[in-house]
């Protein structure tokens, strides 16, 4: 089935016939619904509310569409463990999402979940052209976020040599890349370009590196960015997709055809829906990506609204994998802002600022880009309560705000106090978010 020279990690699964796949999905979906109905109060209530009895009402995959969506807020509201489907003693790892809401979204993994996760990430790395001979430098954050450890275990499963360099310290990353002869870089697309800029600055010739692959994820990007990454770093750049609530990295990944990401359909059911009406979109039409997990044990989700915009590409792929593809993530359909791979809801920043002086300031979240480096700024309109005669007190206030926001989202913002009434308004309301990343270059 698969063309000569294409390396597929689990060909018996990834090239499965459509009918066999649908049966497997049905079996796994039914088991998942039976389990959440028994173990997760949130889903039991959801089912009762609409009179849905999983064993009777899910006879076919299409019946899933009867169920309501699960939202980010639903997960936040069950902080920390309410939506876990197994007792904590079965959970061997806990991660959480970046802080877009007051309560982060906490997810857990059983031993088997971790095994599956590593396997799925290995599939994605293999489809990006990586093998056990590669030296993979992982520049995602290691910690509560799923990116670092998610990729890490998959890369080990692949048998590659893994460099867990984690985020930041670009000069050191480049030195490691040179000295350790990194062949594959796992990064956000914007970080790939930051590295390229830094190399220019340092006079490092990317042609003299061993680097051959950039495996990119974590934020929406464009074909132009891909070209730039490929041309400047002399690599093949591929896209992959993951989201903590669903699993983390490993949900979908591009093959070397670079024509969209294969969804791991034996583990996830994807739908593309109209973000306003929730109605299914036609194949090829842009809509919100909605995912149902089929094998997750500790933290299954049913019809989870990812907030990411993509298209379903049902045409068969030249690589021989039968799993359907989704387009690159073309944006967010809500007020979530992705900066440095971290999701931020501007509204929640107001909640944090409110804690400082007990009142909600008038503010605007502004993202700028210098070169390829994103900068988060918070512009705050000065009021009596926020204004001090003494410079020192004024600075303390600003430091305090900066600290609180940094603790909350993990990015240190630049706080700017501006004149009252000076923030851009629409219908008398301050725009919560301004993106200068495209215009400031």
């Amino acid at each position: 089935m698969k063309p000569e020279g294409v390396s597929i990690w689990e060909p018996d699964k990834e090239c499965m016939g459509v009918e066999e796949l649908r049966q497997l999905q049905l079996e796994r979906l039914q088991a998942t619904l039976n389990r959440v109905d028994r173990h997760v109060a949130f889903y039991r209530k959801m089912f009762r509310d609409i009179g849905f009895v999983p064993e009777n009402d899910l006879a076919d995959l299409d019946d899933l569409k009867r169920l309501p969506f699960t939202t980010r807020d639903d997960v936040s509201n069950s902080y920390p463990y309410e939506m876990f489907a197994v007792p904590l003693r079965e959970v061997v790892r806990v991660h959480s999402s970046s802080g877009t809401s007051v309560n982060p979204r906490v997810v857990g993994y059983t031993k088997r979940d971790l095994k599956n996760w590593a396997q799925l990430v290995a599939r994605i790395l293999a489809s990006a052209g990586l093998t056990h001979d590669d030296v993979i430098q992982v520049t995602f954050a290691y910690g509560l976020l799923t990116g670092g450890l998610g990729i890490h275990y998959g890369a080990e499963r692949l048998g590659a040599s893994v460099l867990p360099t984690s985020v930041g310290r670009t000069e050191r990353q480049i030195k490691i890349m040179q000295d350790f002869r990194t062949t594959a870089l796992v990064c956000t697309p914007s970080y790939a370009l930051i590295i390229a800029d830094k190399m220019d600055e340092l006079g490092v010739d990317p042609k003299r590196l061993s680097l051959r692959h950039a495996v990119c994820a974590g934020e929406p990007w464009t074909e132009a960015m891909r070209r730039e990454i490929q041309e400047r770093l002399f690599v093949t750049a591929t896209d992959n997709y993951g989201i903590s609530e669903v699993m983390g990295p490993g949900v979908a990944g591009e093959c070397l055809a670079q024509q969209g990401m294969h969804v791991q359909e034996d583990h996830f059911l994807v739908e593309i829906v109209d973000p306003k009406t929730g109605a299914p979109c036609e194949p090829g039409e842009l809509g919100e990506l909605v995912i149902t997990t089929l094998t997750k044990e500790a933290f299954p989700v049913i019809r989870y609204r990812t907030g990411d915009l993509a298209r379903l590409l049902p045409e068969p792929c030249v690589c021989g994998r039968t799993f359907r593809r989704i387009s690159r993530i073309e944006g967010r359909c809500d007020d979530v802002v992705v900066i440095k791979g971290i999701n931020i809801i501007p509204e929640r920043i107001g909640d944090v600022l409110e804690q400082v002086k007990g009142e909600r300031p008038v503010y605007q979240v502004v993202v700028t880009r210098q070169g390829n480096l994103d900068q988060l700024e918070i512009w705050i309109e000065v009021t009596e309560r926020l204004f001090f005669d003494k410079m020192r007190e004024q600075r303390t206030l600003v430091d305090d705000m900066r600290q609180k926001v940094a603790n909350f989202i993990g990015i240190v913002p630049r706080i700017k106090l501006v004149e009252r009434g000076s923030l851009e308004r629409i219908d008398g309301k301050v725009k919560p978010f301004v993106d200068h990343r495209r215009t400031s270059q």
Partner: protein
Amino acid sequence: MLTVKSLHAHYGNIHALKGVSLHVRSGEIVALIGANGAGKTTLVHSICGLLKPTKGSILFEDNDLTRLPPETIVRRGISLVPEGRQIFATLSVEANLEMGAFIHRKDRAGLRRDMDRLLERFPVLRQRRRQLAGTLSGGEQQMLAICRALMARPRFLLLDEPSMGLAPLIVREIFDIIQELRGEGRTILLIEQNARAALQIADRGYVLETGKIVLQGEGRELLAHREVQRAYLGKGAKPIWDA
């Protein structure tokens, strides 16, 4: 080879199977494990045509079995080794085997050849060929039950609790035979309460609880699964009584 889709079945008022889906690929050993009353035997009877399911479908090589009588299903190549063996105690071993070949009764020569081959393979039965089946030991009776099912020349074999009431050593012998049968190209659905033995030889397994599938995976994977271990492998676990 066998695909069960969203199957429901009732025993009187009891809703015994609640939307069960599973599949068995050609050449596989698939284990279905579960406690007493979970619905395992109901599923077996539905596949064999002994019980009419209320909803859902059973496909065998793309043909629907749900409306077919048991005899036709046997002719399609599915044979059952029933729970508790169900041998004809007052008949001889040979007569029992002959009963298994009911659908081939007109093919006397073929029947004889099949029987000779089986008796060759199981010398214990050969020695007792004229003995009444009721006088055999439990393990021998189980062997006989398997051989009787084989007399129908099945490609797909359903084994319902083959380890029941047998000593561990004999269980091992029976399970070796099951693996050999697979080695000969037969496909096997193994229904067992003895989860450990079943999952050890199974490629894949399903866990049935109160008529619903709650877990599935590779045999080894399920064997290492904490939930399975606690509920079915008796590692510091209370048995499950609810049904």
